[in-house]
């Protein structure tokens, strides 16, 4: 049934839009606050459904459908369009959301200038929310809309399509902490700041407040508006400062200079990243063997020449399959026993996409070593693999023999033996001659 549905949809995809399915599942639960109009987000939701996702809608206070049953998530992804909701049903708590992330469920969370349980959850991901009730304001560029509705330039990012037009934004910024797992997606414009009123009479009070709280001025492009976080289990969560980013109203609104806004494209790209469609890699398999051999030996000997190969694929959302990926130029291999004894690059093999190979010499130490490939780059899945191998000292018959430095000793030993044999032969010959002489002498007597 599922197969038929997929086949039908992929046929349609050849005629219609791009079919892009997630690498980790298609079931999405959307928690939609009752105050938001579902029809206002039709472009976003219909786009998801067209790409093959199964959306289930629910109000935050409803108990069913439950996100997880007995700690097993029922959905692969959860969208929380609940920026102002302060109370949820019992299955949605900050702890349960973090638990979902450990079970490889991805989250798309929207925040707002109001203080909600989700903004305190954002603090756990090293995002610092502004003081409550301080939306982002900008008086530039000159436009008819109010100062809280800001067109934001989209900077270059591997997550977003190049050339996306500026997006409309109205909501709360956040400051980025120093966690290395954060992936900034959209930053505030340089001319923006967070304040609780649109006229500038309160500016002095804002500066005083920031000096008191010690976080600095809530202004400029140091602020993030949409930020992602990839956990060590490779589940992804995006905190967006505004739910209207994803709305039809903003997608259709033209920018002050007349070009259409990039909201629809931006929302599609962000959803593709969060739902594990783009920038998803995996190591298919690794192989190791000695040079001129093909099978992995049970153990290596010190100073062996070893060849290590890794096969890496990337998920291709267009075809919903894993394809070999040869774009990694900075993979490293470590041959480790407590400390890396060998650390070398793992370059791609020209002509064989997805294959990364290196040859190196095992160190002069014996012990239990690990082949470690660890690769962490912002926005991409973390690659990590370890293989344990023993490295033993040479057997008694694996040492080099007949060394050229030892030929005098070989010559000495051999000459002694040869001399012994020659001596014995001559001695016995002399003995026989002596006997014959004796016999002759006695006979003649």
């Amino acid at each position, binding site marked *: 049934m599922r197969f038929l549905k997929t086949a039908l949809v992929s046929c349609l995809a050849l005629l219609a839009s791009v079919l892009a399915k997630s690498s980790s599942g298609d079931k999405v639960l959307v928690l939609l606050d009752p105050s938001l109009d579902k029809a206002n987000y039709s472009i976003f939701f219909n786009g998801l459904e067209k790409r093959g996702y199964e959306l289930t809608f629910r109000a935050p206070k409803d108990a069913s459908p439950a996100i997880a049953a007995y700690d097993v998530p029922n959905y692969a992804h959860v969208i929380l369009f609940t920026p102002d909701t302060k109370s949820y049903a019992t299955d949605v708590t900050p702890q349960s959301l973090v638990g979902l992330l450990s079970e490889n469920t991805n989250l798309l969370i929207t925040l707002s200038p109001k203080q909600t349980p989700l903004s305190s959850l954002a603090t756990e991901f090293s995002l610092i929310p502004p003081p409550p009730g301080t939306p982002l304001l900008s008086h530039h560029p000159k436009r008819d809309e109010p100062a809280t509705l800001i067109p934001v330039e989209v900077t270059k990012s591997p997550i977003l399509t190049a050339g996306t037009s500026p997006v409309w934004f109205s909501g709360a910024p956040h400051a980025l902490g120093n966690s290395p797992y954060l992936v900034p997606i959209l930053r505030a414009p340089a001319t923006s700041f967070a304040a609780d009123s649109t006229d500038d009479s309160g500016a002095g009070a804002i500066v005083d407040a920031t000096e008191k709280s010690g976080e600095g001025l809530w202004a400029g492009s140091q602020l993030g508006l949409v930020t992602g976080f990839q956990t060590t289990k490779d589940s992804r969560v995006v905190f967006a400062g505004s739910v209207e980013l994803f709305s039809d109203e903003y997608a259709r609104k033209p920018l002050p200079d007349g070009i259409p806004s990039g909201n629809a494209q931006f929302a599609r790209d962000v959803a593709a990243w969060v739902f594990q469609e783009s920038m998803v890699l995996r190591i298919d398999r690794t192989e190791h063997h000695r040079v001129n051999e093909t099978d992995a030996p049970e153990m290596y000997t010190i100073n062996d020449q070893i060849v290590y190969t890794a096969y890496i694929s990337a998920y291709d959302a267009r075809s919903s399959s894993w394809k070999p990926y040869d774009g990694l130029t900075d993979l490293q291999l470590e041959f480790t026993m407590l400390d890396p004894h060998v650390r070398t690059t793992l370059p791609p093999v020209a002509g064989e996409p997805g294959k990364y190979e290196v040859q190196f010499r095992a160190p002069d130490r014996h012990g239990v070593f690990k082949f470690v490939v660890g690769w962490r780059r912002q926005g991409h899945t973390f690659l990590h693999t370890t293989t344990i191998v023993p490295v033993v000292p040479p057997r008694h018959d694996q*040492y080099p*023999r007949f*060394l050229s*430095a*030892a030929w*005098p*000793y*070989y*010559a*000495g*030993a051999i*000459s*002694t*033996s040869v*001399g*012994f044999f020659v*001596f*014995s032969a*001559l*001695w*016995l010959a*002399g*003995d026989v001659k002596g006997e014959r002489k004796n016999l002759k002498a006695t006979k003649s007597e």
Partner: protein
Amino acid sequence: MAGAKASPPTTPSSMSHTVSALWKSYVQKTPERLKFIDAFLTFIVLSGVFQFVYCVLVTNFPFNAFLAGFASSVGQFVLTASLRAQVNPENRSEFKDVSPERAFADFALGSIVLHFFVFNFLG
């Protein structure tokens, strides 16, 4: 060993005189077979000295090869010297139970065993 007793040396010339008298006596009085054994002994000594000098001056790597080669020389010297002692007619009174043939058999057997160990350790 048959030979004139050396007079205590008083001058360098008398020292060289003593040595040449010793040598002449050795050449004349020693039986042929003993001289044959002595030749073999000299050869073994030279081989051993050469290996030792090489080890000290050039390199002692690989050490097991040096030990094997040097032990071969030393062991063979000891066995041949004992053969000479047992076979010497002047020592017949000390070696009444050991006939020259028995002495040679002991020598051959010991040498075979020695060479076996030497080539095993030579590497």
